[in-house]
Every structure is written in C-alpha cells, then in structure tokens.
C-alpha cells in the first residue's frame, strides 16, 4: 500500500507547530497503525531527520498510552479500538491520513503527537479511590455484590484513561473519564462510605484542570475504545446532585 501522512510536528510545548507530509510506499495491510509509524521513523532517522514522537507502550489496547487523532477522530476510523490495535487494512491504498495530537488545554503538547495527561492522575488523586490501608480488609466474601452491579462496575472500571473522550468532545470535557471512576465505586458497597465526598471532590478537580463542560453530544461514548457508556455520566450527575444537596459543608 501507498500512504500519504500529514503529521503534526511540534518541537516542544513552546513551539507553534506545523504539519509535515510524508510518503510511505511499502505499507503492509497487516501492520498496526503504530508499526507504520515505526517504519516512518526508521525512514526519517536514516534520512537524518527527527523521528515523530508519539506515546505508546503495551500495543495491545489496554495501557491507554497511545493517543493519535486520525483523520478527525481519536484512535481512527474504527469503533472500540485504540490506535495501537488499528491495522492498516482499515485504510485504502493511496489514502492520505492526517494525524494530530489530542487537543485540549488540559492536555498540553509535549512534543509532536505526545501530550501531557497528568491532569487525569490529579483527578484520581482527588478521590478516585477507596480509603483502605493495606491489611485492614476483611474476608473478601464478606462483601457481597449483586452480579449485575459487579458487572456494571467492571464495565465502568474498564476505562483505560487514554483521554479519547476528551479528544473527541467538542468541549474537551473529561466527564466520561471521571464518571467511569465515580460510577465504579457508586455501584459497589465498598464505595458507599466516601460516596458523596468523592464525587464533589473529583468534579471540582476536573473543573480546575480546565476541562470543558458536558453537552451530552455522546461523542465520548462513541469514540471510547472501551465502550464506556453515557449511562455513567448520568449516574455521576445523579451522584453529584444528591451529594451537593445533602452536603453539610
């Protein structure tokens, strides 16, 4: 396959950045999208040029590190797939592919296609946990969880924190990410004790980090590689309303 790539190049945070166009002539349909970038980088290095910096690690769709905005969509044209699991057979010979970094004020570009997503860590620090010290847990089967709730909590917890929801949202909102964590704990008996404070703190932090507001377009759900449901955002809204109305602070 022959592929034309238009890739965002930006030396560092301060640089204004621009697009560069590259030609690749020997792309195999069995390659993953990132393997194609490996080939591009090999080529650039051998030509004495700077390779494209991009985040990636596990390359099996679970670590959440890869983050490319491909032809106007996070993680490219397929649903339920991360960039690393996208294969070139999803493109046609002769295609031009435009690749950009996630765009969000809360995710500043570090270099080329690499962005800083530490805002997500800080949101989790604000309350995305259950306060249990090691050693204080009782026997696991003392906590019973209805299967239906356990399954729902799992589906919410399947979030890989890649940030595609933010990238896809026209408002760069992080509601789906935050809602997934809030939901997971709201659905489990273990999460009840800190339930109210958790949602209030996490939402507050989310706002402080500069993410936009949710306008329920559903783009996040559609682009989430793990199919995290909008239902979680509704649940978080519910959690927030209840917590805020009954809070004594």
């Amino acid at each position, binding site marked *: 396959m022959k592929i034309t790539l238009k890739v*965002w190049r930006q030396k560092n945070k301060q640089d204004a950045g621009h*697009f560069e166009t590259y030609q690749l002539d020997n792309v195999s349909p069995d390659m993953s999208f990132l393997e194609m970038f490996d080939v591009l980088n090999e080529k650039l290095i051998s030509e004495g040029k700077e390779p494209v910096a991009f985040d990636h690690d596990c390359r099996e769709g679970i670590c959440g590190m890869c983050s490319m*905005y491909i*032809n*106007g*969509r996070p993680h490219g*044209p397929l649903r339920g797939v991360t960039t690393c699991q996208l294969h070139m057979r999803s493109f046609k010979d002769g295609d031009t592919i*435009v690749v*950009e970094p996630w*765009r*969000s*004020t*809360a995710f500043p570009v570090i270099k080329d296609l690499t962005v800083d997503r530490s805002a997500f860590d800080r949101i989790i620090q604000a309350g995305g946990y259950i306060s249990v010290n090691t050693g204080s847990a009782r026997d696991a089967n003392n906590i019973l969880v209805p299967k239906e709730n356990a399954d729902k909590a799992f589906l919410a917890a399947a979030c890989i924190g890649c940030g595609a929801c933010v990238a*896809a949202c*026209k*408002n*760069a*909102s992080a*509601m789906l990410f935050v809602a997934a964590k809030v939901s997971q704990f709201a659905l489990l008996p273990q999460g009840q004790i800190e339930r109210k404070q958790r949602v*209030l703190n996490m*939402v*507050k932090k*989310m*706002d402080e980090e*500069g*993410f*936009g*507001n*949710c*306008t*329920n*377009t*559903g*783009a996040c759900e*559609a*682009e989430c590689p793990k199919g995290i449901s*909008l*239902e979680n*955002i*509704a*649940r*978080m*809204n*519910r*959690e*927030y*309303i209840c*917590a*805020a*109305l*009954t*809070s004594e*602070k």
Partner: protein
Amino acid sequence: MAKGMFSYSIGKKLIMGLTGMFLILFLIVHCGINSLIFLNDGGETFNRAAEFMSHNWLMRTLEVGLFLGFILHIIQSLILTLENKKARKIGYAVSNANANSKWYSRSMGLLGTLILIFLILHLRHFWVVSRFTDHISSGEETLYDEMKEVFANPIVVIIYVLAQISLAYHLMHGFQSAFQTLGLNHKKYTPIIKKIGTIYAIIIPLLFALMPIVMYLGIVK
C-alpha cells in the same frame, strides 16, 4: 447543600437542564393555547384563552418566572460556551465529528442564537403589543387580529418557519439532554424518553410553524 453547588460544571449544566425543562413545559402550554386558532372559529376560543392567561395572577407570576428561565438559560449557555472554547484553545485541522455525534447536538449554541433572534422579533410582534400598548386592552383589536396582521407579511412567515426548524433541532437534542443532565438515565426508560423527545421536537415546532402558514394562506380566517 454544598457551597457553590451551581458554580461547578455539573451544577451549571443542571441550571441548563432545569431551565430547559421549564421552557419545554412552557412550550406545551403556549402551543396548546395557540393551537386553538386551528378551530377556525375566527379566533373566538383563542382570544378567550389569551384573555384568561393575561388576567390570571398565577399566569402573570409564572410569566416573570418564564423570563427568568429564559435569561438564566441564555446567560448560563454563554458562560458554558466561553468556558468550553477555553478548554480547547487550539482546534483540530481535520474533524470528522459527524462520525461520533449528531450535528445539531454540537450546534446548540448556534440554534439557540437563531431562536433568540426570533424570540426578540416574536416578543416585539405580540408581547410588546399586548402588554405595552392599549391596542388589545382597549378592545380595538384582539390578539387574533394581531396575529393575522403580522402573518400577512410573507417574510415574517418565512422567518417564523425557519425559526421553528431551529427550535425543532434544538429540542431534538435538548429534550433528552435535559434528562441526562438531571441524571435520569435508565435502561428501559431512556429509550422511551428519547422517543418522546423526538416526537415532541417534531410536533410542537410543526404546530407553531403551521400557524403563520395557515394564516398567511387564509386557511384559518
């Protein structure tokens, strides 16, 4: 209640949702009363209803609430839009948003602005006349007469119809969005809410749009 409940993103959205729902209810009343013109009785029933509405103290109080609702809805949306713009200062060169969301769900601001422009015109046409002039209170003419007068102008009719299209799309997203924002999401009920929302978003604007058309064409006399 938590301090600053409405100053955080979900709180702000809540105001949008609550005022939106209030406006949705208002539209039902408004549309219901106006639809009385389709009785084609020379506006008799319609005028009586209008008379009742304008002299009922409860309705007058609600009217204040209605204005407040509109204003809150508009101001809050402006704040949210500004914040959302700030959340992505550098946009994408290529965007294929149609692959993940409906265009009208992403264009609520634009649709809302069109509706606002229409609203100003609409208030000027009817509310200002009935409230601040003595045309109607003096019995010189009825609200129904006023309608016929306004809708004699084809340009006004076209503007009204276009505005109703905007309203339809605004509601198409807004109706179900309000439920989502209030956290009312349920495996069984949400699909029903969405269906009702779609039906509502078609019926109400359609009825509204028909009013100037039938009057202009003289179907309703």
